[in-house]
């Protein structure tokens, strides 16, 4: 096994026993990046020198017995998390040269535990998209099939992990942006409960929905990353003061007696039969392992797309007002008045999808339309939240598909945004309700594309999700499939 193929936990074991150094592991990942990047485009910035010096430091710390919980492990970071001194573009031309003067809290957490940051990975511009195709610096590719999308918006995170460029990554999830690319690329991805992980230094898209989370190749790695990034942060006013359990403790305790809810509304028309079969086999697996399967109903699921695509753009239109060319990022130097500077900077700097969402959001918040659109959507959000709360009276965790289909070809849907928005229907609700959710690899389609299974739980019950996910991972008996790159 080559070092770059190791999981986080395996790499830590080998480094602790002295078989492997962080410098060797980091070099192995950097060589893998050199090999596959021309084809996959996962990274926007590779910080070779920075990574190697962090790796040397990690080796020294381990040698003197001061190894942190991620000591020497190379990771990638979605390019909308602030990294001090390393370019952070958010996938947008408007921030092409932006170098943050500070670290996001989660980046700080990783550095404190000795993690090595390899670089910054591609994403839809400002995380607005479901395929990573709106990235201004190259579109990441699905490593399982040439010409297919990686999913999004954390497409670069998912590709870098799936293709063994690194064993783990941090992404963000506003409407499925961790879980969906994880599913389409065949890796594990977790969106924590809203407020569980600090958003300080996470570039805001829709502040009431955004959440940072890990993408890894195993549930065990995901639990370890959750241990490191979770917890209250006084610098994020929506961070929640809630005890953080050791997420690694109960992974193998099984699902006996666990009540697993199957929401009928997630298995309707439009769900691909192969995807459904894979999710059903996941349900059977949990049942065989002793879980009790219960039918539940989330009757307002069909309204999630409309509510989300009003609320998220509304918040985005306000958050993205800061990109005006005055303080950082791109400025159109030709403009000779302040107003023209704002207009031209934004018109040249933002891509089409970002403009579209700013326009929808501005419209939904504008005088005369606020009640009909924004307020209405916020009321429907309450109904969606109530649905979940009712369902969790009869079950501990929900199991469902993540996307109606496996990955599709790059370039499909590029002129018509609505069908793409509709494909998010199974992931958006968790964000509207602030719930934790995860994608666990469930199998492959006949075409060889991965399909994930979604687990969602009550607020702050990531442990239950991880336990059920770990059981699926152990018992599903997936065929060993190798990438051909």
């Amino acid at each position, binding site marked *: 096994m080559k070092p770059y193929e190791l999981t986080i936990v395996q790499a830590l074991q080998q480094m602790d026993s002295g078989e492997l150094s962080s410098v060797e592991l980091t070099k192995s990942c950097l060589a893998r990046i050199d090999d596959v990047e021309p084809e996959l485009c996962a990274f926007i910035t590779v910080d070779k020198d920075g990574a190697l010096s962090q790796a040397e430091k990690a080796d020294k710390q381990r040698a003197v017995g001061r190894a942190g919980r991620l000591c020497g492990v190379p990771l990638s970071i979605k390019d909308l998390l602030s990294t001090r001194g390393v370019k952070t573009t958010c996938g947008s031309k408007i921030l092409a*040269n*932006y*170098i943050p*003067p500070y670290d996001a809290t989660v980046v700080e957490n990783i550095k404190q535990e000795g993690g090595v940051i390899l670089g910054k990975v591609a994403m839809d511009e400002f995380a607005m998209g479901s395929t990573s195709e709106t990235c201004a610096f190259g579109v990441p590719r699905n490593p399982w099939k040439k010409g297919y999308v990686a999913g999004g918006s954390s497409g670069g995170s998912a590709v870098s992990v799936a293709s063994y460029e690194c064993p783990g990554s941090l992404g963000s999830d506003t409407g499925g942006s961790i879980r969906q690319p994880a599913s389409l690329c065949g890796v594990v991805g977790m969106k924590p409960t*809203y*407020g569980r992980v600090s958003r300080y230094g996470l570039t805001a898209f829709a502040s*009431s929905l955004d959440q940072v989370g890990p993408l890894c190749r195993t549930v065990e790695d995901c639990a370890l990353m959750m241990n490191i990034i979770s917890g209250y942060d*006084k610098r994020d*006013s*929506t961070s929640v003061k809630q005890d953080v359990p050791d997420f690694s403790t109960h992974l193998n305790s099984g699902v006996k007696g666990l009540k697993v809810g199957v929401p009928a509304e997630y298995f309707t028309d439009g769900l691909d039969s192969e995807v459904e079969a894979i999710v059903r086999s996941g349900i059977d697996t949990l049942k065989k392992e002793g879980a009790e399967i219960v039918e539940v109903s989330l009757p307002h699921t*069909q*309204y999630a797309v*409309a509510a989300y*695509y*009003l609320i998220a753009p509304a918040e985005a*239109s306000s958050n993205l*007002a800061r990109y005006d*060319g*005055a*303080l*950082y*990022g*791109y*400025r159109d*130097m030709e*403009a000779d008045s*302040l*107003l*023209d*500077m*704002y*207009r*031209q900077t*934004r*018109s040249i700097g*933002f891509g089409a999808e970002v*403009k*579209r969402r*700013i*326009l*929808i959001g*501005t*419209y939904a918040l*504008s005088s005369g339309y606020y009640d009909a*659109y924004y*307020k*209405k959507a*916020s*009321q*429907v*959000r*309450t*109904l969606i*939240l109530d649905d979940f709360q009712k369902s969790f009276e009869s079950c501990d965790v929900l199991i469902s598909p993540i996307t109606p289909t496996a990955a599709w070809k790059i370039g499909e849907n590029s002129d*018509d*945004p*609505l069908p793409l*928005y509709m494909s998010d229907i199974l992931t958006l609700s968790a964000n509207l309700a*602030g719930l934790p959710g995860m994608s666990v690899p469930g199998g492959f389609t006949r075409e060889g594309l991965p399909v994930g299974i979604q687990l969602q739980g009550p*607020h702050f019950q990531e442990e239950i999700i991880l336990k059920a996910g770990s059981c699926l991972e152990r018992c599903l008996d997936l065929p060993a499939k190798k990438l051909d790159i």
Partner: protein
Amino acid sequence: MKITKKEVEHVADLARLSLSDDELEKMTGQLDTILSYMDTLNTLDTSQVQPTTHVFSVSNAFREDIVQESLSQTDAVKNGPLQDGQFFQVPKVI
């Protein structure tokens, strides 16, 4: 029509975006389709439903007013597209 070209132009102006004629044409069509879809929400009676803007109740996070170290002026203006090391520079305002 849910939204007219003139309304899109007005909204673009509020958002400080200028759209080319082509962009305006395309955006108007797309926004019209999207906003028509949003009408599905109107099939729900929400007259008795409180809106949710945040899942957990949010209150102001106060802290003690203590002087702490912050970014230096040089670091703070470093990313400015036009700056003199101390101040951001923008086109003449008045």
